[in-house]
């Protein structure tokens, strides 16, 4: 029975965080990227990050995803610790056939979903996150 159960993927830590002034480790969130006819969808696991703490930045062709978690307060003494609490950060290079104006971001249950429509390249801009 144990072989068919979903296993834990250990969180990958990153050193390159840019401007992290917080005292928590920073992890690389696992992502799924799939392409359909009209768009490219990027799905990232960032548990513990509320919607307002997601920062998505698009600068020419660099897409940066940053998620910060609220401060962790440990209650009592630890008995068992299978993961570490921390922020998330990942950078992607977008190809030129993504329409920068039409990126939609939504966040639910700690999963960020970015839908990137395919079109001509456009100016860099900030993307606001709305709930799905």
């Amino acid at each position, binding site marked *: *029975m*144990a072989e*068919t*159960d*979903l*296993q*834990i*993927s*250990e969180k990958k*830590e990153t050193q390159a965080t840019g401007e992290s002034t917080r*005292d928590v*480790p920073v992890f690389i969130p*696992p*992502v*799924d*990227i*799939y*392409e*359909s*006819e009209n768009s*490219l*969808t990027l*799905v990232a*696991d*960032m*548990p*513990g*990050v*509320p919607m307002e703490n997601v920062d998505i930045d698009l600068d020419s062709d660099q897409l940066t995803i940053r998620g910060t978690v609220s401060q962790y307060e*440990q*209650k*009592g*003494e*630890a*008995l*068992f*610790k*299978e*993961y*570490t*609490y921390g922020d998330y950060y990942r950078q992607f290079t977008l190809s030129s056939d993504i329409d920068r104006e039409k990126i939609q971001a939504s966040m*639910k*249950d*700690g*999963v960020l*979903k970015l839908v990137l429509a395919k079109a001509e390249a456009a100016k860099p801009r900030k993307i606001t996150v709305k709930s799905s």
Partner: protein
Amino acid sequence: MAIFRYPNWRWPDIPGAMEDFERARRQMDRLLSVFSAGTSTPASSGVFPPLIVTEDGDAIYVEGEIPGIKADDLDISVVGRTLTLSGERKPEEAQNATYHRRERKWGSFRKALTLPEDINPEAIQAECKNGVLKLVLPKAEHVKPRKIAIKGE
């Protein structure tokens, strides 16, 4: 189904004391895993979801990362001292899509945890928010530390 028992040692009480050591140990484990080729035990080997279990005098606290799982998809049950978490993580529906990258795992899971003390099942609180599960399992009355007053002269 995976059942866990606690190691005999305990984490130090000072919060953050082990963080630097833990990070160094994780990095060393990764570097050295090249040589041991699968025989080393990772820091968190086991069934989804990863959990942090803490306790104080009043209750046992369980926190777990369950991204993409809503409260309805998760089944929590307590029988005696065994806490069982089970559910299924469903993949995103993608019609006619080709995957460029696939790092997120999906599937069904079932994890059983043996708690170190008796708890009061009537008073369990569970919260599922932003992909993080938080459980408060209050300890049974007979287990809580009892202060005994000493009468002076």
